[in-house]
C-alpha cells in the first residue's frame, strides 16, 4: 500500500477586538461577571433588530486584505437556525453563499473564504465534571454572545500536523500585527478547528475527514492532529474506513472524543437575514483596509531572506515579532560595514540569551541596549577589535547598565591584543608549558591545539583573536 499522506484544512475563528458587539452596542468583555454585557438585542428579546458594527466590517476587510482575498461587492448575511441555549435568537447571523472574502492566500496556503458572523454565548454546565453529561443544571452567560467573529477557512493544502500548526502560528502573527484581535487561544479569541484526512500519497482524491475541535493551544492543536492522523492511518492500514464525525479534544488527557451523532444531525435552514441589508463596502473602505496593512510576517521574512541575506529560521523568527524586527532593522542600519545577517544573529542569539539571563521579561526594544550600541558592539567584534567572548561580556554589561560598548571595552580592558610581538611571546610560553600537546599536534592530532589555545586565552583574559592564536601556535611548531 502506498504511504498515507496527511490532508489538513483549518477553520479559524478570530474574535475581533472591536469596542462593541457585532449587532448591538454592548461592550466586549473577557472574564467579567456573567451577563453584565447584555441588552435586549443580544438577549434576543421580541422585536429587536440587529445593526451591523461598522468597525467589525473594517477589521474584517483588513483581514481580507492581509490574506489577499477577493472582497465581494455585495455580501449578504444569512440566518443559521438551530436551537441551543447559547443561541438566544435560535439562529446565528453568519454569512453563507456570498461571504465577505474569498480566494486568498497566506504562506503558500490557499484561503477558501473569510466571513463575518457573531459568536455564541457560553453555556456552563453546573456539576463536578463541567461537562453536559451528569450535570444537574446549565447556566448561560450571554457576555460573549454577539462578539464579532471572522471565520477563515483554508483549502485542504496542509500536509502534516507540524505544517498546519506552523501555518496557524503564521496566521496568528499576521492577524496580531493588524491589531484587530487579541488572538489568544487560551481566552478563545483565536479558535482553530482542523479538518483532517489521509489519502495514498500522490492521490488527487480526498479521504473522509474528521473535524477536530476544542484545541485551545498550538501544542494541543498539533498533538490533536497528530493523534488523529495516526488513528486514521492505523484504521485504514488495518482495512477499516474513516467515519465522518466531529471529535472534541480533551486537554486533560490529550484524547479525542466523538460528539454524539444526534447533536450533529443539523439542518441549519439557512436563509438570507431579512433584518439586514447587503454588506457593500465602499471603494474608500477597501482602499483604507489595504493601506492600513503593516508589512506582514510573510513579506517581512521574504525581504529579510532575499534582500538582507538572513537565514530562513532567523528571518521567520524576527518577522513574527515586529517589535524586535524593527529593533534589528535599526541596529542593522547603524552597523556600518557589518552584514545584516551578523546583526540578526546577535539579536536573536547573544542578545536574546543575555536578556534571558538577566531575568527574561524584557524585549530587545525595551532593554537598555540601544540599537546603535548593539551595532557598535557587533562592529567591534567584526573588526576584531575585541574577541567574540569579550563581545558577550560587553553585551552583559550593556544589558545591565546600557551605555557605549567602546567605553566598556576601554574600562574593562577588553581590547584585543593587537601588538603581535606581545601575543607571540605569550604563545611561545604556552607552547613551552604544554609539551605533550605540542607533540600531539606535530604528529597530526589537530584537536590537541585546543589546550594551547585555552592557555593563551586564559593568559590574555580572552582578549586574543582565536584565529590569530591558532596561526601563531602552528608557526611556533613549524607547521
Amino acid at each position: 500500500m502506498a504511504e498515507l499522506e496527511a490532508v489538513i484544512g483549518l477553520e479559524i475563528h478570530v474574535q475581533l477586538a472591536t469596542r462593541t458587539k457585532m449587532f448591538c452596542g454592548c461592550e466586549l468583555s473577557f472574564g467579567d461577571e456573567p451577563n453584565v454585557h447584555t441588552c435586549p438585542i443580544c438577549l434576543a428579546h421580541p422585536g429587536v433588530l440587529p445593526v451591523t458594527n461598522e468597525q467589525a466590517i473594517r477589521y474584517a476587510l483588513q483581514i481580507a486584505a492581509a490574506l489577499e482575498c477577493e472582497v465581494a461587492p455585495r455580501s449578504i448575511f444569512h440566518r443559521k437556525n438551530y436551537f441551543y441555549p447559547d443561541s438566544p435568537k435560535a439562529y446565528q447571523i453568519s454569512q453563507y453563499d456570498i461571504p465577505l472574502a474569498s480566494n486568498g492566500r497566506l504562506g503558500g496556503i490557499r484561503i477558501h473564504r473569510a466571513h463575518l458572523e457573531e459568536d455564541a454565548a457560553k453555556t456552563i454546565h453546573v456539576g463536578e465534571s463541567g461537562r453536559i453529561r451528569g450535570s444537574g443544571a446549565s447556566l448561560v452567560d450571554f457576555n460573549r454572545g454577539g462578539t464579532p467573529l471572522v471565520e477563515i477557512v483554508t483549502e485542504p493544502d496542509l500536509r502534516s500536523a507540524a505544517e498546519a500548526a506552523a501555518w496557524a502560528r503564521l496566521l496568528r502573527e499576521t492577524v496580531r500585527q493588524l491589531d484587530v484581535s487579541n488572538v489568544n487561544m487560551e481566552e478563545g479569541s483565536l479558535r482553530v478547528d482542523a479538518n483532517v484526512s489521509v489519502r495514498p500519497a500522490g492521490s488527487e482524491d480526498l479521504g473522509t475527514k474528521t473535524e477536530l475541535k476544542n484545541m485551545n493551544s498550538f501544542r494541543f492543536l498539533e498533538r490533536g492532529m497528530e493523534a488523529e492522523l495516526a488513528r486514521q492511518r492505523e484504521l485504514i492500514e488495518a482495512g477499516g474506513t474513516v467515519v465522518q464525525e466531529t471529535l472534541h479534544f480533551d486537554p486533560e488527557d490529550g484524547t479525542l472524543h466523538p460528539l454524539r451523532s444526534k447533536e450533529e444531525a443539523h439542518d441549519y435552514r439557512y436563509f438570507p437575514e431579512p433584518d439586514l441589508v447587503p454588506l457593500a463596502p465602499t471603494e474608500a473602505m477597501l482602499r483604507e483596509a489595504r493601506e492600513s496593512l503593516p508589512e506582514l510576517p510573510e513579506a517581512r521574512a521574504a525581504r529579510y531572506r532575499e534582500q538582507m541575506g538572513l537565514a530562513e529560521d532567523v528571518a521567520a523568527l524576527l518577522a513574527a515579532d515586529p517589535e524586535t524586527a524593527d529593533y534589528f532593522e535599526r541596529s542593522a542600519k547603524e552597523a556600518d560595514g557589518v552584514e545584516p545577517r551578523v546583526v540578526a544573529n546577535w539579536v536573536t542569539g547573544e542578545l536574546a540569551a543575555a536578556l534571558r539571563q538577566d531575568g527574561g521579561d524584557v524585549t530587545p526594544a525595551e532593554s537598555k541596549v540601544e540599537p546603535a550600541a548593539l551595532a557598535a558592539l557587533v562592529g567591534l567584534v567584526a573588526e576584531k577589535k575585541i574577541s567574540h567572548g569579550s563581545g558577550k561580556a560587553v553585551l552583559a554589561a550593556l544589558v545591565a547598565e546600557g551605555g557605549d560598548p567602546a567605553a566598556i571595552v576601554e574600562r574593562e580592558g577588553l581590547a584585543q591584543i593587537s601588538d603581535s610581538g606581545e601575543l607571540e611571546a605569550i604563545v611561545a610560553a604556552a607552547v613551552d608549558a604544554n609539551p605533550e600537546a605540542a607533540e600531539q599536534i606535530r604528529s597530526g592530532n589537530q584537536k590537541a591545539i585546543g589546550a594551547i589555545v585555552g592557555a593563551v586565552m586564559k593568559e590574555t583574559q580572552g582578549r586574543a583573536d582565536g584565529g590569530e592564536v591558532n596561526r601563531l601556535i602552528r608557526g611556533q611548531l613549524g607547521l
Partner: protein
Amino acid sequence: MADLLAMTALEAHEAMVAGELSAAEYAEAWAAAAAGDDLNAYLWRADGDDGGAIAVERPSIAPIAVKDIFCTEGVPTTAGSRILEGYRPPYTSTAVRRLLEAGAPILGKTNMDEFAMGSSNENSAYEPVLNPWDRGRVPGGSSGGSAAVVAGALAPWAIGTDTGGSIRQPAALCGIVGLKPTYGAISRYGMIAFASSLDQCGPLTRDVRDAALLLGILQGGDPCDSTSVGIEGGVRLPDREDLSGLRFGVPNDIADQVFDAGVREVFEATLATIERLGGEIAEVSLPHAEHGISAYYVIAPAEASSNLARYDGVRYGMRADGAGDVTEMYEETRAQGFGAEVKRRIMLGTYALSSGYYEAYYGQAQKVRTKIAADFSTAFGAVDFVITPTSPSVAFGLGEKTDDPLAMYMNDFFTVPMSLAGIPAISIPAGLAQPEGGGPDLPVGFQIAAPAFAEQKLLDAAHALEQAIGFDVQSPRSGAPYPPMSGIKRTGSGGDGDG
C-alpha cells in the same frame, strides 16, 4: 363628552393648537371611553395600576391605541400569544417612542391574532375581538383590536402592523381607514417580528387626514432598523379635492376573481365616483399577482419559523414546568405556548427552508415575489394607482372560517401582492353591502396602491375620494345595540351625487 369623541384626531389636534381644547381633558375622555371596552379589543389599558409606565407628561396630541405587537417598556406585550403572557419588555419600540415624543398618550394595547397570523382575530390567545358593526362577526385581522377600537369609539386612532393585509383588511371590515406604508417607511424596531421582510407598521384612523397626520409622526429612518429609510420630504396633510389627471388601474383579471356581489357593487360604484372626480380608470395587467397568496404563504411562514424560534422558555415569557432536559423544555414550552395557527405556520416555514426543499419552495417564492414587484413597476408606468377591493367579502361570522385555513388565507388575496412588492396601499371605507348570507349591511373597503414612497400622492387621492364617498365612519358607535345604520348611504345605490 360625546362631542369630544366625535372629533377626528386632527380636529382635536387643531383645537388643542388653537387653545380651544385641553389635551389632558380630551385624553381623559378617551380613557373613560376605552374603559368601556365591550369588544374585547384591549388586552391592557393605561387606566390600570401600571399605566404610569408609559405615561406622557404633557399630552399634546390625541391619545392612541397600540397593537399589542409593539414593545412597551414595563407594560405587558403579548403579541396575542400565551407564550408571552406576563412579559413586560425592557425597552420601547421606535414607533411607540415616536408617539410618546409627539405627546400622544397610550390608551392601551389592542388584541390581535397571535403573532399577527390571522385575518379574523380568532387566533388571539385571549379570545377574539368583536366587530362593532355586528358582534357576531369578526373585525378582521390581525390588527382587529386596533380596527375595532377606532370603529367602536374606544380610541380616536390606533397603530397596527400589516404583513399581508393585517391593517387594510380589518380597516375594511370595520369601516375605517387603514394604511400600509412602503416597506422601510416606519422603523420596525421593537415591533415583534412575524415576517421581517413584509412587516410594516401603519395607522388605523377614522379618515385619511388622520392617517396622514399619524404617518407623519411615525415615519422616518431609524438607526436601530437597517431596513428603515423614512419618507423623503415627510408627509403633508392631504387637501386635494379632485382626481383630474390621475389614472387608476384596475387589474384586468378582476372580473374572474371570486368575491361577494355586494363588494363588487361597491367597487364598481367607487370607480364611477373616481371618474366623476376627473380620474381615469384603466386596465392594468398584473400577471403574477394571482400567485401572490402561494408565494406569501411560503415566505411569511419561513421567516416566522425563524423569528419565533426565540420563544424557548429560557430567557423570558412562559416556561413549561416539569421538563427533564433542555430539549423537553423547548418542546413543552412551545407546545403549550403557541396556538394552532402559529404551529401550523412554523411547520410550513420549517419545511420550506429545509435542506433539499429550499429551492423548490423558498427560492421559488422569492422569484414570484420579484415578478410581482416587476408587474407593479410596469403597471405604474401606465397608471398612478392600482385599485382593488380590499377584501373579497364584508365581515364574516365568528367561527365561520376557522375550520378552513385556505378560505381564511384567501381573505388576503387582494392585499398580499402589495405587501410582496413592498409598496404602500390604503383601504378606505367605500360603502356598505349586505353579507352573502344576509343580515344588516356592513362596510366595504376600497384599496388604492401606489409606487414605493409615493405615500403623499396616495393620501392626496384617497382623501379626495373619501370626501366624495362621504362614508359615515362614526355610525357603529352612535348607540347601542350595534349596529344602528341610520344616515349611511349605500354608495352606488342611486343615492345623491353618484353618477
